[in-house]
């Protein structure tokens, strides 16, 4: 089927493509784009700039409202992914599209299974997968179930899926968001190898550093339009960022030096044995009132488990956790909240909000049974509404009404609802996990200011993030977590570089136990006994 490609011209192209959704949103406006064969083309832009929609048009998941999509030099009408696949287009989605209970090999061949007369030849599937993995350098275990392998292997599985379908164009939608630096390196090496073999790669990202590292050319999108295409060699992160937002971008946060008071959070010898996921091993650390302590680490090294233990969603196996003197290790979530713990969860869609319920109802989950919202066992709708209106104006949540369901808000506004709830509770300890993931630059700045403000009002803030720039900009102190244990601690973050922290995240640099626990009282021992 790939024979229908023309000999000359671009591998993929868009001609004056516009996509208007049924609800009137114009996601892509008059885009002209040409990507020649054998090129790695990065497409960058803010959230909602239209990158993903454009890719969906190339992959047949959406159809353009006007204009043409060209693949292999010819205009095509892609009625679905099947048509795109047949023309040699493969896509690795941001949310991986794998069937969890199937093996790697079964996922690779899904839709184009080997075998005759409607049967699936499982052995052939395994052999094919192993061979493809060998040829491309993308190491996978063909017979492992997908829900039991690492995120990196899942992503390699996705790429093998495209290769198995003889893809000549590979679309990677934010592929590094879930990868460790080492896995990112491996991915880049594999992508370069594919490019050298003639593959055209479309690489979607908003991590400008990675874009500079991997791509040959960069196309910048803003508000649905393609604003520029430049050779990567001629671009700097700063110039790209400026094109993305249309102004010079600076995310430096102005903050006074921290004035830490007494210890608010004291964690001693924290152990957690995970049935699935990462276990934690002997964590000792303090967070003082009035300071932001960052937790750096490659995702999946125990950050989620740590945050959920501190918030009361999981019980530690051993060790003590004290919040302002209250032993919280044995308490449930309500007990933690009572002790003054606020938590901005990393996955806001999963547990941060009830999407179909109103903003007003989402803002009161931790306080719905207390005055002024409830009196004598009766919930007061007027008070709930007034409470919501107050927070909507305090936190600049853009919505016509408090009764609007949270689902209809943008990512940034949704996150504002959660942050508004957690901060307005006046927490003694705030655990903020990936606060700015998937929100736009404006909301990002807003979150930063609020976190610093909370700190200055005396909250102890534990900031967990995958974004090193963010951590270095905000943290007064920084901890590094690896394989469920602390490996580094920086009590002064001025002058600390991302590279140095990166080395700790990879385990190249390690601090000894003395430095990790310096200055910590050992009163935890008594409490444990």
């Amino acid at each position, binding site marked *: 089927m790939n024979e229908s490609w023309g000999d000359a011209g671009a591998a993929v192209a868009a001609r004056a493509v516009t996509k208007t959704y049924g609800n009137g949103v114009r996601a892509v406006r008059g885009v002209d784009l040409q990507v020649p064969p054998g090129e790695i083309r990065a497409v960058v832009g803010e959230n909602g700039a239209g990158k993903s929609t454009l890719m969906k048009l190339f992959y047949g998941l959406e159809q353009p409202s006007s204009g043409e999509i060209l693949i292999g030099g010819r205009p095509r009408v892609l009625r679905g992914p099947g048509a795109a696949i047949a023309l040699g287009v493969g896509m690795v989605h941001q949310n991986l599209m794998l069937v969890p209970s199937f093996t790697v090999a079964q996922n690779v061949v899904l839709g184009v299974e080997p075998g005759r007369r409607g049967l699936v030849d499982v052995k052939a599937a395994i052999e094919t997968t192993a061979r493809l993995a060998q040829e491309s350098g993308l190491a996978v275990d063909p017979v492992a179930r997908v829900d039991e392998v690492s995120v990196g292997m899942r992503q390699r599985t996705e790429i093998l899926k495209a290769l198995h379908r003889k893809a000549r164009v590979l679309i990677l939608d934010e592929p590094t968001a879930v990868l460790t630096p080492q896995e990112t390196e491996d991915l880049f090496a594999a992508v370069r190898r594919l490019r050298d073999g003639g593959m055209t790669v479309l690489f979607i990202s908003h991590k400008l550093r990675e874009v500079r590292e991997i791509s040959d050319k960069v196309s910048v999108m803003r508000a649905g339009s393609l604003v520029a295409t430049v050779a990567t060699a001629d671009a700097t992160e700063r110039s790209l960022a400026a094109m993305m937002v249309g102004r010079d971008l600076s995310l430096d946060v102005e903050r006074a030096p921290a004035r830490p008071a007494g210890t608010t959070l004291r964690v001693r010898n924290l152990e957690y044995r995970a049935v699935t996921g990462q276990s934690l091993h002997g964590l000792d650390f303090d967070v003082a009132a009035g300071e932001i302590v960052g937790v750096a680490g490659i995702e999946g090294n125990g950050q989620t488990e740590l945050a959920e233990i501190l918030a009361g969603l999981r019980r530690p196996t051993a060790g003590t956790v004290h919040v302002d003197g209250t032993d919280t290790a044995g308490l449930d979530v309500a007990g933690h909240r009572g002790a003054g713990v606020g938590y901005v969860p990393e996955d806001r869609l999963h547990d941060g*909000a009830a999407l179909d*319920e109103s903003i007003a109802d989402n803002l009161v989950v931790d306080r719905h049974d207390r005055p002024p919202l409830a009196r004598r066992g009766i919930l007061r709708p007027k008070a709930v509404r007034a409470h919501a209106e107050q927070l909507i104006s305090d936190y600049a949540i853009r919505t016509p009404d408090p009764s609007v369901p949270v689902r209809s808000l943008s990512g940034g506004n949704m996150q504002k609802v959660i942050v508004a709830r957690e901060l307005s509770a006046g927490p003694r300890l705030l655990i903020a996990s990936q606060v700015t993931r998937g929100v736009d630059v404006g909301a990002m700045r807003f979150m930063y200011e609020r976190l610093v403000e909370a700190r200055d009002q005396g909250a102890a803030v534990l900031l967990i993030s995958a974004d090193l720039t963010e951590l270095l900009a905000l943290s007064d102190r920084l901890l590094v977590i690896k394989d469920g244990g602390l490996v580094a601690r920086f009590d002064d973050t001025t002058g600390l570089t991302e590279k140095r922290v990166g080395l700790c995240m990879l385990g190249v640099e390690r601090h000894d136990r003395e430095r990790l626990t310096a200055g910590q009282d050992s009163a935890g021992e008594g409490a444990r006994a």
Partner: protein
Amino acid sequence: MTATLVETEDRRAYRATRRRDLAVDLSMTLATILAALAIGFVVMLATGKDPVRAYEAMLTGPLERSFRVGRWLEDATTLTLLGLSVAIPFRARQISLGAESQLYAGALAAAMVAIFVPLPPVVAVIVPLVAAAAAGAGMGLVPGAMKARLGANEIVATLMLNAIAVRVYDYLVNGPLKQPGSTAVHSDPIRPDSALTPLQEWFGVPLGRANTGFVLMLLTAVALWLLITRTPLGYRIRMTGSNPDFAEYGGIRVPRAIEWSFVIGGAVAGLAGAHLVQGVYGRLEPGLAGSLAFEGIVVALLARNNPLVVVVAGLFYSYLRSGGDIMEQQTDVGTEIVVVIQAVIVLLVTAQALPDLLKRRIARRQAGVR
């Protein structure tokens, strides 16, 4: 300044959208009913019946004589209580199909007290009601606790309990509780003091077996509406149903909210059983519930689990049921056509995409006009 202008504009647009959506919902419901009646019309015509006469009997029949109104209200009382009983667990997103078992538990409890325990007036009415609610709640607690504490599938658990309850009830009515010396299968009658007062005594016109249970049902609906919208427990049930992970994250004890939803639902279904014993039959009859429990589910779903709307849906549904009986008596059309009409209504109402399609089309047209 501009920001506030934009916001006012947004707010106005949002309110207009809400009003329009409500209007569409209401007219769609009406259109749905008409469409279902039209289908029934065609079916009758196709099978050689006289649909005009049949519909005349069905749609005007229940109001023609006061005792028919009574028949309607009596049926609506049980049906609405059953609808309310599943609406509460449904709000916690628990698919409880156990109203049948809870009804039988309630009926048995009410009958035991009302037949065997001598009590002073008024108390004699209340105690069996309370016993029925408690028995229903207990019956609801079993699948509720199994789901909340152990994670056992509630659909299977409630279906099994139904199967058990129906058989145990059948055994009791045919065996230990059967009225001695009677050839027909039923229990002893309840003591007169325990009977729910017939509405006939209030209004002075013959209203059949309709009784103060109807008022009890209305009060229950209002109470449940207040529970869901105006109490912390109701809030917890709603959040648990909407997103249990969010509820847990927010400090709500999710298992307890789930259990409560089953217990409350069970108590209401128990009341439905008491209504049948103390208000309608005055004794235990075999197969007391008929197919009412499942129709209660339909009523709850039609009302989108809103307790106040459940009353409207229950009244409407019962109207069709009693109209169907009258139609069968007066014409050669079987009452089953009503079941077909009801089924078509259910299928049309659950087709969510229909009103959404319409709303979107209206929105687009208005946008185009501007």
